[in-house]
Each structure stands twice: as structure tokens, then as C-alpha cells.
């Protein structure tokens, strides 16, 4: 009996040796995913002159937090870009979730006569698009998105794929009978939507909200298309700009004036760039464990039920 039991266990789990090998492979890959971030953090905490001498290393030869001090004292551009990124992310996520949920609800309702038309109206945008050129020209000339905060928000308000995920979520999680009961009690459509549907759909909404947050937080493309004004540059685009020249950090600060050359020469440019990367990913990496769970849920909903 005992022998049979161990035999059965052997069949229900890999052997100790295989288990060890699999763990080594997975650990190796997990490190590949994490270590680049560790290297960048280490560089941001290294003294600038040692960087020039020894290059980027995993352990700072000489520790220094001057890059961070510099960014927050001189780099008012970084602070302003950070502010823009936060503003765009918060405003964009709230607006897009509201607009997408408001669109997803009617097309999830079986008794809405025009649901097929509006579903097609939405899905067609996934199949065909006007392309970057036409979209850009209309964005600039007709919608006046150039150098406007809306240029960073408006284009991502509707994502057809996410609306479909929300629609499926509404369809499967909100019983028709509940809506019917509310209607008999005299509730209007908007009351039903805000008081019954939205609270019940919270897990689905949270998932889509996280996708939206991530998209707004990480976006550089809209800034590349529409933003010239240094005051409206978001952090990812500022990171792109400083690849070629640290000059961009000073474009917003008029009070420096003639001293800018002096500041540039003393600037810890290598460490400061990496410090900006760290500041940019900080909120994501810190909150990552909390929303990982929701995203997994959303990903699987999206992949299996489109």
C-alpha cells in the first residue's frame, strides 16, 4: 500500500531532480527580467565620475544620491513632466473608463434593438483605420490637439477591444432579472447603470482601469505627435528627449538664463538620466504586486472570450 502511494505521488508531481532543473531555468529567466532594472537603479546611485571611468555596474563603485538631488533642485522640467504624466493618467483613466462602460452597457443589453449596429460600429475600428498620417493631420488641423493636454488624453478614450471585454463582463455577470426588477421598482436607465451595473461590474472595471492607467502612464507616442510645448511634455517623452541632449531639462526654467551652460557642465547627466527612469517606473514597480492579480484576470478574459 505504502509503495503504491509513493508511486502514485511520483505520477502526480515531477521528480525532485526535474523539479530542481525547472526551478533553475525559471529562476534564471526571472533574473533576466529583473536585473536590468537593478542595473539602472545602481547606475542612478553612482557617482558621475566613477561612471565615466568604470561604466555602468551592478554595484556602485562610489555611492551618491546627487543625481536625485540635482533632478529635484534644478530639473524643474522633470517635476513638471511628472505632474503632466500624473494629470493625464488620472484624468484619462477616469474619462475613458466612464465612456467605455457607458458604451459597453447598451450593447450588452439583449433588449436593446440597435445593439448589433453599435457593436459593429465599434468593432469596425479594430479592422480598419485611417493610418497614422490621416489621423495625425485630422488631430492637428480639425481636432486642434496640437500642444493641448487633450492631445495626450483624447486619442486613447475608446479602445474597442476593452469595450468588448467590458460588454462580455456585463453580459455574464449582471442578470437580466436584476435589471428587470429595478425597472419595475421605477428606476430609470441611468439609475440602473450607476447604482446596479457599475458596482456589480467593479472587478471588470478595475481590470480595464489598470490597462488604461498603464497605457496613459507609459505613453510617449501621443506626445511625439502632438506636443512641442515643454510645459506639456510627459515623463516618458522627456526621457526620449534627454537621450540625445540633457539640454531639454533646462528648457522650462527661465530663471536659469545665462547659467545654463555652467549647469550643463556640472550636470550628472548619466546618473540623472537613469534616475529619471527610476522615478518614472517607481510607482508601477511599487504598486505592481497589488494589481498583478487583476491584470491576470483581465488578460485571461480578454484572450479567451473576445
Amino acid at each position: 500500500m505504502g509503495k503504491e502511494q509513493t508511486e502514485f505521488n511520483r505520477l502526480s508531481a515531477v521528480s525532485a531532480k526535474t523539479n530542481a532543473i525547472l526551478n533553475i531555468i525559471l529562476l534564471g529567466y526571472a533574473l533576466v527580467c529583473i536585473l536590468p532594472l537593478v542595473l539602472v537603479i545602481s547606475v542612478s546611485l553612482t557617482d558621475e565620475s566613477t561612471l565615466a571611468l568604470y561604466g555602468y555596474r551592478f554595484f556602485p563603485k562610489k555611492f551618491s544620491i546627487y543625481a536625485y538631488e540635482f533632478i529635484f533642485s534644478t530639473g524643474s522640467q522633470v517635476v513638471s513632466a511628472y505632474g503632466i504624466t500624473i494629470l493625464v493618467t488620472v484624468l484619462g483613466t477616469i474619462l475613458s473608463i466612464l465612456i467605455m462602460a457607458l458604451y459597453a452597457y447598451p450593447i450588452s443589453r439583449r433588449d436593446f434593438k440597435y445593439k448589433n449596429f453599435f457593436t459593429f460600429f465599434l468593432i469596425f475600428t479594430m479592422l480598419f483605420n485611417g493610418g497614422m498620417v490621416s489621423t495625425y493631420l485630422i488631430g492637428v488641423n480639425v481636432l486642434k490637439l496640437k500642444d493641448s493636454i487633450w492631445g495626450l488624453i483624447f486619442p486613447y478614450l475608446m479602445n474597442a477591444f476593452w469595450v468588448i471585454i467590458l460588454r462580455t463582463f456585463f453580459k455574464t455577470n449582471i442578470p437580466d432579472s436584476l435589471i428587470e426588477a429595478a425597472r419595475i421598482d421605477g428606476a430609470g436607465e441611468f439609475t440602473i447603470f450607476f447604482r446596479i451595473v457599475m458596482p456589480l461590474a467593479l472587478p471588470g472595471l478595475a481590470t480595464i482601469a489598470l490597462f488604461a492607467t498603464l497605457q496613459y502612464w507609459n505613453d510617449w507616442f501621443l506626445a511625439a505627435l502632438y506636443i512641442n510645448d515643454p510645459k506639456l511634455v510627459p515623463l516618458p517623452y522627456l526621457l526620449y528627449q534627454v537621450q540625445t541632449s540633457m539640454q531639454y531639462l533646462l528648457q522650462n526654467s527661465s530663471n536659469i538664463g545665462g547659467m545654463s551652460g555652467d549647469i550643463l557642465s556640472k550636470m550628472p547627466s548619466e546618473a540623472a538620466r537613469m534616475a529619471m527612469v527610476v522615478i518614472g517606473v517607481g510607482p508601477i514597480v511599487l504598486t505592481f504586486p497589488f494589481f498583478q492579480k487583476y491584470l491576470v484576470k483581465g488578460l485571461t478574459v480578454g484572450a479567451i472570450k473576445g
Partner: protein
Amino acid sequence: MKGKEILSPSRTSPAWWREIKKNRAMFLMLLPGVLVLLLYNYLPMFGIIIAFKNFMFYDGNFFTSLFKSEWIGLRNFEFLFKTPDAFVITRNTLLYNLVFITSCTIVSLAFAIMLNEIRSRKLSRFYQGSMFLPYFLSWIVASYLLYSFISPDKGFINMTILKSLGKQPIAWYSEPKYWPYIIVLINGWKWIGNNCIIYLASIIGIDQEFYEAARIDGASRWQQVIHITLPQITPVIIVMFLIFVGRIFNSDLGLFYQVPRNAGMLYPVTQTIDVYVFNSLMRMGDIGMSSAAALYQSVVGFITIVAANYAVRKIDPDSAIF
């Protein structure tokens, strides 16, 4: 109450108006989304005529300029397809996507099976979390992470690894021969965790009775993977594969523009249709050429996505998008 409504002046109003009134709450809910789609998705679709015009601004108004611009038929396309670029960008876009599809599917699947097989759930969760991390980072950040390794004068590879081996430093950003590998690796780095979690979720969803039955028959763990796990998740694999194929003419601008830092010497191996359109529009202001390339991409993209969806529909109607 109802009868009164019918007898009221609305009887003389047109039928469509009554329809709107009847569904007004629903239409009001749809309104903001419809406006966004109309303005940012449908309006540009009509803007594609730019590609058939010698577009010029006449008075600052976009529509009258579009109307007044000379109609030149397919001349923009003739110019585009006469350049060697047209072939290179199409080849790069298609080849990279083919390699991405195959490599990402195989590696993610392998990791998903490994994660499911290892004994410790805690470690499995830690690996999942680490693999998932790159998905959360922007391409700009990814380009900096890569740069910290391959910067020619300070990068970890040149300054630490190659130096300790006594080898000459490599000018990474001007050597096209390394980039096909770098692009494929960094794309995998960003996406594998995400795909892996999708596969893992469907593996976990497999009915445990299959495995119990196999164990009673004495099937080894490896046999169970081959004969139960893989066949059970094949529909998911095929659907993911086809969705990917549907987007084969699209490329991620962040990956091909940001990660190689738009280095001109790397164009032969890094320029895809999207990079070409972006560069000729934003850097050269060449509206004719870029609109022709963009429309070319939209049309072939439309065909592939419809074909892929048709195939998905045949296999698993629930996963089809329309």
C-alpha cells in the same frame, strides 16, 4: 398614460424621432463613445484620400485644402514602391512578426508548463511576477534598460564583460548584424511573461479528472503533459496564434523606433512600415509618401485581420471578434 403618449403631437413626428425618444437613455449613454469614435477613428478613415492627392495647405482649413489639392491617383504609391524602402519595410515587418509569433508561442508555452509543474506554488508565483514585470514598462524604459547593457562607452557588456575577457568593445548602435537578435530577444523579454500567464490560466483550467485517470493508467508526468496538457490547450494556442497573424502587418513603433534609438545605420534591419511612416511624416514632413505607406498598411492589415478572424471563427466561435 401610454395611450395619451400615442395621441399626443408625437404622432405627427417622424418614425425615426420616435425611435430615438423611445431609446433615448441608451443613445445618451452611447453618445460620448460614438463621438470619440467618429472624430478619432471614422474621420481619419475618410482622410485616406490624402494618399491619392498631392496634399497642400491652401488656407489652413483642412477640408477645403483636401478638396482643393490636386488628384494624382496612384502616383504616391508608384513613388513608394519604386524606392527600395518599400520592399525592406515590408520584409522587416513580416519576417520579424513571423519570428515573434513562433518564438514567443514556444517559449511562453514551455514556461507555462514549467510553472505548472514545479512543486512550490510560492516560487511559481514569484517567477510569474518577475516575468510579468517587463510588460508593465514602457518601450522608452526598455530602451534605457537595454542601453545600460550595450552603451558603447559605458555599457555593462562592453565595460565589464568584454573588458574582463580582454576583447574589443563593440559599437552596438552602428552594427546592424546584431540587431535582428536584439530585437527578437527584447520583444520576447517584454511579451513572454504576459503570454505565459494566459497559457498558464488555461492549463490551470483543465479538468483534473483527465490527470487522475491518466495516473491510474500509470502515465508519467511527462506523458501527461504531452497527451493531456498540450491537446487540451491547443484551441487557445491556435486562437492566440491567429490573433497574432491578423496583426502581421503591424509593428510596435516603440520596439522598432525607441529601442534602436532610431539609429540611421540600423535602418536596414530595424525599419518597419510604422517606423517608415512615422519618420517620413514627423521628420521629413513627406505627406505623400507616408500617407501612401500608411494606407498600404491599413488595407493589407484589414485583409489579414478579417482572414484571421474567419479562421478563428471556424475553430472557436466564442473567440472570434466578430
